[in-house]
């Protein structure tokens, strides 16, 4: 299975994380598992690198974090989306829709060049 390019993954990280968090609050490991599962393993991040992205989103005020202790007594840092993050997600969705439609149109107009 071919891996998706680094640049494309980089560009889509923020909308993907915000979308996962818009369903329910979550922690780094769970977010990664969710994405792996949904993309059938096609999207694979250096797992540790999700944290700097989460921290950046928190700094920008899109998400908030809090430490919680799980049933097994392990500490986990949970992230949840806030209103500013929801607004960001809406604008991200619009941007992605524009790009998506453009690509679909281009490929539908010229389906068989070869």
């Amino acid at each position, binding site marked *: 299975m071919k891996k998706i390019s680094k640049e494309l993954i980089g560009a889509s990280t923020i909308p993907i994380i915000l979308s996962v968090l818009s369903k329910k609050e979550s*922690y*780094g*490991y769970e977010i990664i598992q969710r994405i792996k599962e949904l993309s059938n393993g096609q999207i694979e991040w*250096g*797992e*540790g*690198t999700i*944290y*700097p992205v989460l*921290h*950046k989103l928190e*700094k920008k005020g899109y998400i908030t974090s809090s430490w919680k202790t799980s049933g097994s007594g*392990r*500490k*986990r*840092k949970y992230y949840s989306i806030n209103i500013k993050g929801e607004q960001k997600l809406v604008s991200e969705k619009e941007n992605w829709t524009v790009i998506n439609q453009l690509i679909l149109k281009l490929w539908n107009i010229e389906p068989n060049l070869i």
Partner: protein
Amino acid sequence: MEHRTEFNLANCINHWKSILLENNNMTIDNVTELESHLLDEIVSLKESGLTEEEAFLISQKRLGNINLLTHEFSKVNSHAFFLNKIIPYIKGVLIFLAFFQIAELQINAFYLFFKPAGINNNSLNVASIILLIATIIVFFTAFFFKYKKQLFNFHYFIKIPVLVSIVVLSKIMNMFSVFLMVKNYMDIKNIKTLSYNLNIFKSTFVIILLIVSFLVYYKSKKVLKIAN
């Protein structure tokens, strides 16, 4: 067959954490978060039938190598990175100031203590020199034992608030002792001898420090050359 020592997960995780913490651009909070991730991954890999050691190695690999992690974290932690870098310099300057203040305080206290006993100028001179040499020896011995033999732990002592209070307090006590010396004894000759000795002491200390800096610099160049 090669004998393998038993795998200890807690030790391995602690070792991994200590390497991450050595890097200036990660906070304790960051490392705790990564550790929690690592543990989650280990649990899930063990459930799929891997041994603890295999699970640890794979989790570590999935999380990303330490260079990659520290590089990525440095982008968001530039503030912490700067603070961590600058703190050792500030501590160094403070230790330097504290050392001079304490040396001066010692001499002043010594004078105030022995002057009423009627000590003459000559013995005062000799005694103050001995005291200062002893101070410098104690300082460098402590330094040597800490860094070469790793015997002492000055961890609690070398904190910025502690160092600042030492500098400020000893400065105040010095001013007070000079005031007492002038008020009670008015013996300019003695005070001159003491400040003369103290100045020589300070210059000697600075010269030693400069020599040590050069030695450390050349040694580091040599070591780095071999490493490359």
